[in-house]
């Protein structure tokens, strides 16, 4: 009879309850009128932003900033991670400050980026790069450090060069931790870029959110936030799918990842 699993029912019920409460609070005038617009109004505004093409240029700007920053983060964090993972001594020196910096609010660096790179896209790219760097560097270090020693010994005994060891041993056996790190890093890069846009920008998803806020177009603000969440969730889902594929293609490594 009862085919739908009960946790799913509870999840759906909770979301419906939340939406119902939202509508009730909005109708009750408990809060200042307009602060809690009806869900339909928000969805309508979101539809307007998508169908009129208003959101797309901003979407592209944010994507560009986030991915450019993410690429810079990946190109620096992965080699660094391999270097640290392969050198226990270096790791002992460099890893602690990385871990400390990772737990600080990166957005505080944004004014420095603004001064260095200006208020255009570049400062947001720098935000995305710094935000994405730490999760990826931490994961790559862990991955490189836990590499199967036997692979390294085999490579050495067949006379592999340094570069060959890096590309033939480290990279393939680090695919999983690297992709796991990339998933976190890309999410962080997107948030970093958008936070920067919320502060100082003239384009991007963060820009349209804060513009709507400043002009008190509240339904449009919610709509832009909703679209931004969809964007972030979509990227996250995509990365999870890729991670699943990588996991299936990664051979047994003798250690648990």
């Amino acid at each position, binding site marked *: 009879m009862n085919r739908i699993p009960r946790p799913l029912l509870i999840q759906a019920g909770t979301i419906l309850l939340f939406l119902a409460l939202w509508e009730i609070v909005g109708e009750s005038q408990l809060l200042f009128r307009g602060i809690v617009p009806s869900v339909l109004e928000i969805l309508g505004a979101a539809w307007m932003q998508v169908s009129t093409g208003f959101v797309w240029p901003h979407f592209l700007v944010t994507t560009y900033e986030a991915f450019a920053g993410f690429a810079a983060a990946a190109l620096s964090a992965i080699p660094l991670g391999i270097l640290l993972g392969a050198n226990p001594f270096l790791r002992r020196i460099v890893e602690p400050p990385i871990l400390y910096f990772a737990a600080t*609010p990166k957005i505080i660096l944004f004014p420095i980026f603004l001064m260095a790179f200006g208020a255009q896209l570049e400062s947001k790219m720098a935000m995305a790069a710094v935000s994405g760097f730490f999760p990826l560097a931490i994961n790559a270090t862990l991955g490189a450090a836990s590499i199967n020693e036997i692979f390294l010994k085999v490579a050495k005994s067949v006379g592999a060069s340094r570069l060959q060891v890096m590309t033939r041993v480290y990279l393939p056996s680090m695919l999983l931790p690297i992709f796991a790190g990339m998933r976190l890093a890309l999410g962080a890069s997107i948030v970093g870029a958008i936070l920067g846009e919320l502060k100082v920008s003239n384009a991007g998803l963060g820009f349209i959110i804060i513009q709507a806020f400043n002009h008190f177009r509240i339904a449009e603000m919610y709509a832009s936030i909703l679209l931004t969440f969809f964007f972030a969730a979509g990227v996250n889902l995509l990365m999870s799918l890729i991670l699943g594929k990588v996991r299936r293609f990664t051979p047994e490594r003798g250690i648990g990842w």
Partner: protein
Amino acid sequence: MIAVAAWERLLAGELLGPFAKTLYEVAVTFVIASLAGLTAGYLLWRYPLFGKAYDDLLGALFASPVILLYPIFLVVFGRDAKAIIAMAFITGAIPIAMNTHQGLRDVNPIYLKVGQSIKLTRRQMVRHVLFPAAFPAVLGGLKLGLTYVLISVIALEFLIEIGGIGTIASKGYFWFNTEELYLGVVGAMLLSMLLIYLLGKLEAKLLSHE
């Protein structure tokens, strides 16, 4: 130069106010987030059906950029410390609830069976079996929660400029006062690193007593 600026301001008493404000916001938020997170984690464990359902929802929320919701909190609470505390509360309470739930779920069922067989009351069970066994995971959650609270508070102070250490950096930029800007940046970084360092020490100490 920054050190000189910092020293001058410290003497003038201009630095203590913002630091105190940030620490106050972090402390208040962390206390509320801990109470809510621990309670929620316990309830999720106590009612596994809901635990299963809400674990997915919490995980999704945790993975999504919740901090971007801050304009909503500004609209609802006004440009006020309340908005910062409410926003940071969400980012902090989620990892605490998830880790508490996880820690309680991972308690070896044999411990619980032994407890049942010697007829412990529910309260004794929580106090002498569940709590000690789940303690490391709960502590990890609290640490993560405090880190998130700190990051959110400083980020929001920077973004909406209503005082605190994050605001110093923001104002420094807009008034083109480089000294003040770096003072705010370095201050915020040092504050978070110091807090994380102390937290790590505390965790090691608490766990070594186990």
